[in-house]
């Protein structure tokens, strides 16, 4: 019982330190981003706000503010005709959310709008470079690309992870205790793991 308590205590300590590290990274980068914004160095500001978003902490207010700032840079850039920078802003928001996905994608409810914005800006850039191109057709083409999903199935991936761990644990158990039940359960988990890999 004492051991379990100790493990839980140390577990929380590790978790706390990890969250602290991420929060510190968010706060530092956010401050740098604000300074860059003040000096109108938008490229640096985007890079720093991107770091805030990539040091993802659920429900962090700094992430929301970073997204707001990135949207404002996008609007300014688009107004000034800097379409590449506007695209960089929305692509940064979108990518940071995808790179921080776990069981779900953070801020997934607002991603649909970001997707549309990405497709719109890409189509607009093509149109400025090649005036003969059909902007609407390009928008549809880009939207199809942007909306395509290739992720492995979440439940089957989780199943694969869990069954793999159980396979290793029961195999080690067989080695340690020489129990046939463990060997059979090991083979059982192996079968489940293979099934999950096929389905995922």
């Amino acid at each position, binding site marked *: 019982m004492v051991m379990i308590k100790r493990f839980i205590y140390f577990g929380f300590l590790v978790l706390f*330190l990890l969250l602290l590290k991420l929060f510190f990274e968010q706060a530092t980068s956010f401050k740098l981003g604000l300074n860059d914004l003040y000096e109108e160095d938008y490229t640096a500001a985007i890079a720093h706000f991107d770091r805030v978003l990539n040091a993802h902490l659920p429900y962090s207010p700094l992430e929301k503010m970073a997204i707001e700032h990135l949207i404002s840079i996008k609007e300014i850039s688009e107004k000034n005709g800097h379409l590449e920078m506007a695209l960089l802003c929305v692509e940064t928001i979108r990518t940071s959310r995808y790179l*921080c996905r776990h069981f779900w994608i953070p801020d997934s409810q607002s991603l649909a709008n970001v997707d549309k914005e990405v497709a719109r800006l890409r189509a607009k850039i093509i149109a400025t470079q090649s005036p003969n191109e059909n902007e609407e057709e390009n928008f549809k083409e880009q939207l199809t690309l942007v909306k395509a999903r290739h992720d492995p199935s979440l439940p089957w991936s989780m199943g694969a992870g869990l069954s793999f761990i159980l396979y290793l644990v029961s195999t080690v158990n067989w080695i340690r205790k020489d129990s046939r039940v463990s060997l059979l359960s090991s083979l059982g988990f192996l079968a489940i793991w293979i099934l999950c890999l096929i389905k995922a």
Partner: protein
Amino acid sequence: MRDTLKIFLLSFFINIFLLTHNLNSGDAGELVTTAYFLGVAHPPGYPLYLMLAKIIQFIPFGNLAFRTALFSAFINSINSTIMYCSIMALTGSTHSALFGFLLLSFQYPFFTQSLIAKFYPLNLLVINIMLLLIGKFLVDYKHFKEISEKRILLTFRACGLLLGLMTALHHTGILMAIPTLLLLLFLVYKGEKVPLRTYAETSIAVSLGIIINVYVLIRGSKYGVFSPVTIQTFTDAFTTILRGQYWDGSTLSIVGKSLKHPYDLVYAIKNISFVTYKVLGIFIGLSFLGLIYMYRNHRMLFFFTSVVILLFGPFLAKITMTQANITERDAYVIANQYYLPYFYVLTLCCALGLKSTIGLLSKFPERVAKCILLLVSITPVAMFSERILDSNLRTNFVSYQASKDTLIILPIDAVFLADNDEAIFGTWYLKVLGRFRDDVCALEWTANEHKEWRNVGCSYPFRRDRFLPILNKEKSGMGKLIRNYTLFSNKWLEGSLVEGLEVKSSLASFLYLYTEKESPIDLENNPQYFDRSEFIRRAERVTFPDVCFEMLSDDYLSNLRCKNYLVHLIQVAQQNEGENCYGKKQINVVVSDPDSKIDVYRGVLCLGEENKQLVKTIVELDNLTKKKNFYFR
């Protein structure tokens, strides 16, 4: 137990403190991406690592690259804790154990591998557990003189499983089969009864480890799964597991090569000695004392340890590092990663060496002796200050930012072709996993040349025949979606059209090829199709080379990418003032590849008003990239 937990936490906290925040250089981009998609990484596929990394990727904070690197930090903390416990068990001396733990934790290769997404820490853990099992077996054998059949069965079954698991990781670990066989021979020599059941059950255990490789066949052959290797049949999967795609570098041919050219051993010993000196420095002497200590107290353990040192040191060097002079790239890829088990065992010997010198302190008063001992045992802490300056991955965003900048400056629907892993892996992480610029098709040169590699960086099916003819000087029409080709190269790509088209090493440097849909283009006679000016104009605004100035680490590949930023800035400067300086001051600029010494860029830079600030940045960045010396240089 309490001490063990404390040691583990101390190690883990240090690793967390300097851990990379984002994507690191090298294979990380590919490994993180393949782990997420449950794909197959470069041969041998690394299924064990990818499965475990996938589980870690479910943590709901940080980004996917950070979480995968956290796995390395966690595993290496276990490794250093095992080191502490092993020394405690062998010597009973807290000072020696602390010394061994600190020396391991702060030595360059072990420390850097703890902070990045890579499979070597896991590789070391598997080897480490085998060392522990066999070592403990030998120590117990010495104490009890005979050992139960049950214990023999348990040890060999466990070693069998671990050897099987090694086939699903980096193959250097399979070398542990030799000490395991020697243990068996030793028992037979000593007349111990090794029941037949042991052989049968060890074979079952090996099979239970090897079976994990079935992952390569299942996931590699599944349509739509991210896998840079072409796997369609059982033979393909088998070839991948044995690294057949590397021809001379395949596992089987390496085994064959290891027995040829015995004179190469001289170079191998020279190189491994240099690397050992670099890593352990003055502590090397202690490792010899440690071996003597072992010989006196645990003779069998001494022979076993010596075999392991010879296998993972000179023998592995004979296979991997027999060049007359090792380049920085060799040192980065080989010395920094492959020899982790070798350094691990040497560190253990150093700690035992310290124990053997404790007797010398008996002449001093007890308090003085204790103080001296404490001071000596914490001397490796001095190495930590060095690590903050050369391995501070917390400050290194180069790989991530350079990949991002490379992608953002590409025209919409471009095809991006890279000729090296470092350039493509980062873009895969961003493009395939992060869906950044998913309109771009990011391909690796090798995948276009050899069918055993798959084109994986496209969001739409990409046919080889659309791309190859252009690079092979043939006239061809373009596909519907592809508007532009952008080529990236660190080297000259010989035997192709690129050779004649001023492909220079830069952030994404470039052949910007305008095309008209479905109309054949005679590239040789139509130079107007190659236009870099607009490309550079746009690139100027959106790139962020400041990442190079922020970086405290000496990471070799990051430094190379900073050189690419350098060429990029030079090209922007040239664009600003033009290449004809018309009476303005001018300087000649040359950027060379540090390893091959080939000039990757040559040009003239005009020092006009437009370039004033830019030239200052160029000079600063040039100085920085020249100053950054990789640890093993």
